[in-house]
């Protein structure tokens, strides 16, 4: 794994806080995601990882703090504007649109880069038709990229779980994001499929995309990610390289209980 040197931070969370009914899901979190890298966000269940993604994408308003994308404050913007700024996500439990084929799902993802106005598209002007054809072509290309070209016209909900996850990633890529947020992209996948996702993430990074992925699996984080951050009870425990993070004693405690237990687990390996 090569460590890349980053000149700048693409996403920056500054003292972000969010509570639900008095329980702090995220408590004063500060974190930076370097541009052009893959960062893994780790932590036990309920640590607040998914909440971070929800906050960044504008699904919930912040209680306090600040979120910046490439230096611009994006907090308080509605979700669709944040998407337009280049932040797109996938979901922990796959959320595809019911009734749509695989291709239609990805085409819906291409909405932001449709290249024509809604009205022109309704009228079906030659330019709008051409743009729509391009978008469809692009959607096919994205499906092919996640290895599902042959599934384009199949109702997405009839596909396997792993295939649905890949459609969701293709849909997110349709929006041509700068920052891709993946919420447990390999959940429910076998080793082979997981590895394919890892390769895809690396390809995307190499093409200039920044990726923040929530991932439980310590092994996958070390394999896929350039950076890692570990959360526990809504706070940042540690950030750094994956190896640094995993070695950190607090992480050991958070993940495996008392460090003594962790020692024993390591010994068993």
């Amino acid at each position, binding site marked *: 794994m090569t460590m890349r040197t980053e000149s700048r931070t693409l996403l920056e969370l500054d003292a972000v806080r969010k509570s639900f009914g008095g329980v702090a899901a995220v408590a004063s979190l500060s974190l930076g995601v370097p541009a052009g890298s893959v960062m893994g966000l780790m932590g036990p269940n309920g640590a607040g990882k998914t909440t971070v993604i929800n906050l960044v*994408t*504008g*699904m919930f308003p912040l209680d306090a703090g600040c979120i910046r994308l490439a230096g611009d404050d994006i907090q308080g913007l*509605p*979700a*669709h504007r944040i*998407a*337009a700024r280049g932040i*797109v*996500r996938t*979901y922990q439990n796959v*959320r595809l*649109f*019911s*009734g*749509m*084929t695989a291709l*239609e799902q990805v*085409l*819906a*993802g291409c*909405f*932001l880069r*449709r290249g*024509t106005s*809604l009205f022109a*598209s*309704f*009228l*079906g002007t030659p330019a709008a038709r051409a743009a*729509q054809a391009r978008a469809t072509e692009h959607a096919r290309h994205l499906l092919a990229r996640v290895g599902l070209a042959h599934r384009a016209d*199949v*109702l997405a909900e*009839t596909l396997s779980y792993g295939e649905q996850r890949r459609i969701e990633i293709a*849909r*997110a890529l*349709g*929006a041509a994001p700068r920052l891709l947020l993946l919420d447990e992209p390999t959940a429910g996948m076998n080793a082979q499929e997981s590895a394919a996702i890892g390769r895809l993430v690396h390809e995307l990074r190499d093409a200039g995309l920044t990726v923040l992925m929530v991932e439980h699996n310590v092994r996958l984080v070390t394999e896929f990610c350039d950076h890692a951050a570990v959360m526990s009870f809504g706070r940042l425990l540690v950030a750094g390289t994956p190896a640094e993070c995993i070695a950190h004693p607090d992480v050991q405690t958070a993940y495996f209980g008392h460090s003594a237990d962790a020692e024993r687990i390591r010994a068993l390996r």
Partner: protein
Amino acid sequence: MDWLSDTWAAYQSTLGFAAVNAVLALSTYAVLSAGVLSFASVSYAAFGGFLGAQVMLHAGIGPLLALPAAILAGGVLSFLVALIFLRLEGHWMALASLALVLITRVVVLNAPALTGGVNGLSIPVELPIGVLILLLLLLMLIFQRLAVSWYGIAARAVREDPAVAASLGMSPRRVQMIAFLISGAVGGAGGVLLAVMLQFLSPDTYFVNIAFTMIASVVLGGSYHWAGAVAGAAVFTALPVIAQAVVPAMQDVANGVALLLIMIFLPRGLIDPRAWRRRRAARRRNA
């Protein structure tokens, strides 16, 4: 030949009402297809209908010329309604729109200058059924264009999952606002067409009954494709006529039972693109 012309004469008005109900159902479908259950189409129809009627009566112009005025009236009203309603959550929006239907009748009763009040309004204007059908075909073409356009894609996404749609850069509010405007324009048109079909408007013309006709047409026909609204309106209009011919003594009961059976066995309606796709997928798997 006589038989043919007699049948046509006997059932042309049924066809006409089916077409008008289809227009009204499309108005309800327009918002439903963007994830909003709203009965406000009744109010757009009332505004468009009464305004169109007044235009025809006073300016002495035909229904085709009154149509733009009704479309505009419905559109303006739907814009105002959307401004208020889009703040409400799903269930409450449905309830609020039903309340709006109830208010519509009160307003109609208390605005005699526009509506004729309790006396109602006689509109001695005719529109050939053929023209009505042509108008419906034009409207169907418009809905087909909408469905395949980027608006249609966004509306489907917003309907299925507004949060995901937003995270893909679609503004649910904007999409639903457009849906309301379409609903209002189509509803206004439907209102004036109904006025011409009835040739007489009373405060009860645009009330709860027609709200249920609209929603039942859409759901019966299938609320996931515009063709569902048209098919549903045809079936819903024809059902009472068939019931009357087959079991005159219990026609309302028969009508209700037919409706019940269709919905229980086809809860997603007569026209259901998802079911077709599923069947196709199943066939492919078996093949």
